[in-house]
């Protein structure tokens, strides 16, 4: 985790007021309190993403929360699918085979992974 000073070094072009607004809107959720925030790796990556959405991709201020919300939902589902995959991996062979057969029957391919 890094503090605000180190964060500023990573993002020299980022205005402090912008970051404060993102935190206030809960787009970014560091630990700690105003003036003494601690940023995890995921927070830093999210700040970079928001900065890129705004500058490189020219996503408007109003659209950014929409993009973040959709991304968050997508990642939630992806994590859940990964969890499901892990649980399926732990099942006996015949159960895994039955699930695989069920997927193949609906997707219509011998490779349900894709």
């Amino acid at each position: 985790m890094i503090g605000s000073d180190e964060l500023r070094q990573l993002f020299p072009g980022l205005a402090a007021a912008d970051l404060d607004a993102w935190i206030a809107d809960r787009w970014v959720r560091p630990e700690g309190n105003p003036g003494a925030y601690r940023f995890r790796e995921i927070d830093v990556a999210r700040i970079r993403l928001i900065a890129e959405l705004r500058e490189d991709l020219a996503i408007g201020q109003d659209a950014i929360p929409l993009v973040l919300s959709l991304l968050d939902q997508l990642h939630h589902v992806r994590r859940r699918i990964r969890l499901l995959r892990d649980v399926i991996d732990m099942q006996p062979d015949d159960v895994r085979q039955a699930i695989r057969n069920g997927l193949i029957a609906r997707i219509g391919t011998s490779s349900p992974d894709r």
Partner: protein
Amino acid sequence: MPVDDPYKVLGVQPQASEEEIRGAYRKLAKRYHPDLNPGDSEAEERFKEISAAHDLLSDPDERARYDRGEIDVSGAERPRRSYYRDFAEQQGGSWYDESGSGRSGEFDDVFSSFFSGRFGAAGRRGTAEFRMRGTDRQYVLNVDFLDAVNGTKRRLQLPDGKTLDVTVPPGTQDGQVLRLRGQGGEGIGGGPAGDVLIEIQVEPHPFFRRDGNDIHVEVPVTVAEAVLGARIPVPTPRGAVTLRVPEGSDTGRVLRLRGKGVPAHGAERAGDEYVTLKVVIGPVDDEFKDFLRRWSPDHRFDPRRDMGRDSGRDRGGAAP
């Protein structure tokens, strides 16, 4: 992958303006930014190319040097960077599950729909409900040898506090699994409960041995009982019975007690008990010694005759 022509990568003319280059980059970045394509590694490759091309062409000095043929695009390539998706995919990514946009709670749990039937019901007619059988629960129960042979009842205390009366049927084998239907985990959506599976581990017995439905036991007899014959009590799984030892029996003689093995159970007939005699001399007094010294049998007997004449000498000459 080396990129030859940054103009082609961005899809612009070599004389394109800075605005056109920026616009082309944005359009492609929106399409290929790895964070907008979670799980797509091709998008990441594509985005690297696009970024490298844009880095070069967005800097007027670099662009001029490239146009003069002084550098190529590889000079502008960046090291592999991490993206938000790399962290969001991990379990720690759930930190951002409820977005700041006020949609919290609406998108709660994918799995709840698995077991509530919302998925299934949508595609089917009527009131299709998700039904699932409860899980099976597995336990191990240690049982005495004789309890497994004769059958027994045991009361089990399950980890969840429930008690369960288990009937171990006669003839239960080591490793056999008893299935108690409907005693396992509760079903979902009205599905039937799972079963309790109890694996029986049979403890060994100090002198009984089991082979299928037969019981084997070695019983010591005195010299007199073996030589003269006798009626002796021998243990069986259901208590002692009297066995007639024929006159002139020897160590290793096997006598069968019909029906005294594992009791009949199910379609299986009762097994037998096989008694192997073992002559033991026991305490010896002077009278016995004197008798043996005076005794001269009619037929010489060599109990080691089947071991060969040379075997003793080979081992050091102890044989006569």
